[in-house]
């Protein structure tokens, strides 16, 4: 147990410099971009612009701005938004976060459980019609990008048939969430299904599976008790990219379905050179991905005891 805890602790420590790196790189990169936060508006008289810049400390030396920013973060202050002048970045992000989180959560759930279920069934009925159908479906899922699936689904289910609302959050109920969640989740469901199938087939080929069958164990229990855990290992290690993908995909999905999440702030912020807003969203996303990877490592270490003892 001790090695496991040490392993978790080490991984946690390793995440911190990564997050710092992300923040630093983004900070300097966004400021490298030509143009500034006030260019989007009508031409401002230079005096006003200079005043604005001084107000936001944009005239100070870049490194001073950097350290100011870092110390601000540690106190929970992500600065004011330059484009949405009446709001602080923290306000905006917290405002949009619940919507993004809910959609993201359900998509992840769909992808993981749907994928594992489909993949396991395929593996059990290997090379049968069930297998071929499920795998073709998975293949389609991962080949169709979410920004293609979304409009196509909207066209079919909302415009041509009035079965679902075409967008907007509404009351956050099934009708409004169903399409965004399906579009976000299916690509990864397809991928997880294929990975699970492969891993399950390999796990079922192991010698100890033969022993379990020879004992008279019915096939369902053979899979559940003896194959599942080792089959999950490659699937779990794939969950990191899946989480990152869903988070990335949310940018587009929120845009298409008009959901008031955090995604639009990132894109608008980048295009509008709203430095603090961009930074805020980057830290949020980066942090989420790093946490997701950490959780994946923890689960992986649990499933695969040998990895904890790596030199």
């Amino acid at each position, binding site marked *: 147990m001790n090695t496991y805890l040490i392993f978790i602790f080490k991984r946690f420590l390793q995440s911190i410099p*990564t997050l710092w*790196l992300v923040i630093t790189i983004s900070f300097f990169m966004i400021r490298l971009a030509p143009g500034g936060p006030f260019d989007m508006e009508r031409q401002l008289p230079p005096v006003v612009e200079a005043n604005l810049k001084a107000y936001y400390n944009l005239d100070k030396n870049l490194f001073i701005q950097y350290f100011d920013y870092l110390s601000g973060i540690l106190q929970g202050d992500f600065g004011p938004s330059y484009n949405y002048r009446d709001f602080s970045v923290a306000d905006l992000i917290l405002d949009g976060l619940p919507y993004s989180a809910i959609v993201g959560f359900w998509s992840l759930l769909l992808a993981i459980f749907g994928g594992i279920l489909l993949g396991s069934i395929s593996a059990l009925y290997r090379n049968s019609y069930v297998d071929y159908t499920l795998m073709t479906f998975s*293949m389609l899922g991962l080949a169709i*990008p979410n*920004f293609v699936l979304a*409009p196509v689904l909207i066209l079919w289910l909302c415009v041509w048939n009035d079965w679902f609302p075409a967008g907007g959050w509404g009351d956050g109920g099934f009708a409004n969430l169903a399409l965004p969640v399906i579009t976000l989740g299916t690509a990864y469901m397809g991928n997880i299904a294929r990975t699970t199938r492969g891993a399950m087939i390999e796990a079922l080929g192991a010698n100890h599976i033969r022993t379990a069958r020879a004992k008279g164990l019915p096939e369902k229990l053979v899979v559940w008790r003896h194959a599942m855990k080792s089959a999950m290992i490659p699937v779990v290690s794939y969950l990191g990219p899946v989480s990152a993908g869903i988070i*990335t995909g949310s*940018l587009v999905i929120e845009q298409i379905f008009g959901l008031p999440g955090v995604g639009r702030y990132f894109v608008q912020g980048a295009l509008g050179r709203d430095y603090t807003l961009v930074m805020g969203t980057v830290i949020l996303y980066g942090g989420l991905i790093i946490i997701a990877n950490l959780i994946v490592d923890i689960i992986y270490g649990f499933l695969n005891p040998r990895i904890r003892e790596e030199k």
Partner: protein
Amino acid sequence: MLKTKKNQFDSLNKDAIRRLFANKASVASLIVLSIILIISVFGPMILPNDLDTVYWDYIQSKPTTENFLIFGTDSNGRDLLVRTLSGGRVSISVAIIATLVALVVGVTYGAISGYVGGRTDAVMMRIVDIIYAMPFMFVVILLVVVFGRSIMMIYLALGLVEWLDMARIVRGQTLSLKTKEFIISANALGVSNFSIIRKHIIPNVIGPVVVYMTLTIPKVILIESFLSFLGLGVQEPNTSWGVLISEGTALMEVAPWMLIYPSIFLVVCILAFNFLGDGIRDAFDPKTR
């Protein structure tokens, strides 16, 4: 004097190729991809309309056989067929070049890291781990925002994202090869490290690398389309499938053909690459069927 046929195909590879061609899905995919490739390259040359020819009388019009506007036109009155095919050129070429970049960087990095081993390997892999943990898509988006929307930038950014996985795979393969007895035998024979990497390691690593490459190409196409969809891709008047789909999405209720045709091309292309990649993997390693 017995001549060694140096250019004779490695019969292990011949077996694999035979298996590949027996797989119907792979063969179908190869055919489909070839067709797409050919019409994307030669189509715009043959067709009468240009990428940016404007038909003032046919703004956003449905598909029609007049003036060869088989796929209809976009909101600027431009021939969608030609634009789709030109978009294909961009999307596919970006994917292939980016993948090659990833290939060269990844294979070299991975082989050296795996073969040299020890401290060097630990450090090299740690670097990969750190980069891997970063939310790369966001850095790419920032990169493109910062440095503008040039084709070069996109190739570079995409290649840089994909080399990590390639390096990891090659390193893993190299590690498991290192312990195989034919490597130890070569050592015992007195063969130099460089020769061992060249003659024994690299030829045995090629299998998984080819499979991975074929599966990376559709991934890159997806990413490029994604960027283009967000408005961060190629610039006017050049276009790619992502741009076309973005334009189509905005107008899908009134001009669904603008969405549908480029989407079909994109999806079919990605599907074909995936089936092909699967087929290649099964051909080289039939155990996992």
